[in-house]
């Protein structure tokens, strides 16, 4: 076999996504949680490109493009927020950011 079945790409995407979710759920440092989110976005990008290949259309790539742009913007703003939070609380542990708790 010289060609890769397309479902393998999708499986890979699923695995990466699941790993992203795992990091999202189980890590305590807020920066690591952010990075897990980026990982999830990347997994989704992969699946979009895979579908673009399947249907032989460029629309999937466009979607990926937009996702990347949004991810970048989100990373910028999110990190800025993390900076502010760190300034106020001097901690990066998300379990300590519980002022919404009664």
């Amino acid at each position, binding site marked *: 076999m010289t060609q890769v079945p397309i479902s393998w790409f999708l499986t890979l995407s699923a695995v990466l996504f699941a790993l992203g979710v795992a990091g999202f*759920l189980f890590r305590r440092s807020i920066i690591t949680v952010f990075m897990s989110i980026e990982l999830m976005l990347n997994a989704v990008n992969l699946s979009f490109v895979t579908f673009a290949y399947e249907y032989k259309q460029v629309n999937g790539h466009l979607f990926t493009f937009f996702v990347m742009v949004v991810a970048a913007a989100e990373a910028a703003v999110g990190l800025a927020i993390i900076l502010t939070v760190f300034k106020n609380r001097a901690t990066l542990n998300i*379990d300590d950011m*519980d002022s*919404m708790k009664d």
Partner: protein
Amino acid sequence: MQLWLIPIFPLAGFLINGLFGKRFSKGLVNVFAIGAVLLSFAWVLKTISGLGDLTSPYTEHYFTWIQSGAFTINWDFSADRLTEVMLLVVTGVGLLIHIYSIGYMAHEHGPHHGGYYRFFSYMNLFMFFMLVLVLGANYLVLFVGWEGVGLSSYLLIGFYFTKKFATDAGNKAFIVNRIGDFGFSLAMFYIVKTFGTLDFNSVFSRAAGIPESTLTLIGLLLLVGATGKSAQIPLYVWLPDAMAGPTPVSALIHAATMVTAGVYMTARSWPIYTHAPAALETIAVIGIATAFFAATIGMAQNDIKKVFAYSTVSQLGYMFVGVGVGAFSTGIYHLVTHAFFKALLFLGSGAVIHSLSGEQDLRNMGGLRTKIPWTFWTMVCAWIAISGVPLTSGFFSKDAILLAAYQHAPWIYWVGTITAGITAFYVSRAMFLTFFGSYRGHEHHIHESPAVMTLPLAVLALLSLAGGYLFPVPAFLSNLFPPMEEVENSSLMAISVAFGLGGIALAYLMYAVKPALADSFVSGIKGLYTLVYNKYFVDEIYDATVVKPLVGGSRWVLWRGVDVGIIDGLANGIATASRGVGGVLRLVQSGNIRSYAAWVVFGSVALMVALGMLAGGAR
């Protein structure tokens, strides 16, 4: 003929006095109140003369009241001979009592009393409703009047509303009446179901073709209503308590007019009853039982008004006996004569009470005949009339009933005759204790009542004596009711007269000649006396068997159980449940970011499962 003018005058009197009477002087209130009844009476006379020799009913249609598909009820007034008799009694006796009230209620006017105009406006309201009742051409208009007089009775019994026993009596009257009215309503429903209409003419003309069981049921239900309004067994208990109202009220409403509404209604429904002999029999039995029962209680009472109250119940029983044995006109005859002498007895006792500045207990009276002669002599006329002394009005009417009863069932005659003796006894006892002997009370200023009170007494006395001749009611009504054999049996007449005279004689012996005899006799039959004196404990029995369970059921089952427990519980329970659910859901907002993350993942997994199942199903 403008029949509607007859009740309109009192209605106008009620409105004017009720709305503006507070600012009127006594004289002005009198003008409107008495004037209203006077105008009404005058119009009745004009109407009667104008109607001439009524052989068939004269009806006036005013407007369509209820229209529902094929079912129509019109507001109609009709007049036939029975109506004429009732109209005369209501307006005539009513007028006399209104005039009397000017004197009796005089002290209710002034800065510290709010009663004078209120009294007269209520009395006029009563007149209005009573006239509507009598003039109604169908059962529903009659029922409007029926309910209205019950309302007026409640208002007037509870006239001295600052006294609890008066308001209690008013409540009792109204509530017991309601029970009767429930029976009446059921009867009306059944009539509508059977006949499709409530109009008298339509119903009565078709009564012959209806199965007897249906008519019996209707008749019995109507009887329930009549026992409530006319104070028969078992719903008579309100009438003695109603003596809490002013004496003119007792005279007008609870002697002459309102309580006779049941008799009138029963007589009016004679086509139904003549085809339902079982119902008629029931009426007669209840009537005679009530007559005897109430008479025995009247023997032992010490309050002068209570004696006459039980007397009224008893005499009403006689009227029902007359109707129940099929001699409808005799019942109406006794209604007329009873209005005369019973109103006189009440008004007279009112004059006595007025003279003694409020004393009502027989044991504190005595020897008054020299001090208040007018009152005495007029009451003597009533006394002999009710005792059935020959040639008085009471003699004719009571005799007519007893003779008719003998033809129907002799045992009723005998019980009725014994009751007549008891009647004579207790009225004589009251008279002897009040007017004879020596004065046992403490009042110093015993004065005769003013003319405005004694004149109506005189008129009524005349009517009590001569009313039998002046108003031969059975002859007048003979073309209306089914004919009954007129039997003149002089031996029966003699027996009943003998019983009456015997009652007077016994009372004379026990209270005028040898007063100690009464006390020794009573102590000899202590237990029985206690039973009778306490009205056979009927009120107490009712209280224990009916009132207390109802109140208890209302309080514990319906209020605490259903209302608070179930309904409030449901409403509050929903609120509490919502709070509970909210309280649980609140825990989702833990403030912990990681748990939010977990919820997000949970939600997306759930969503994916749902989508997968949808997609799988679609495939």
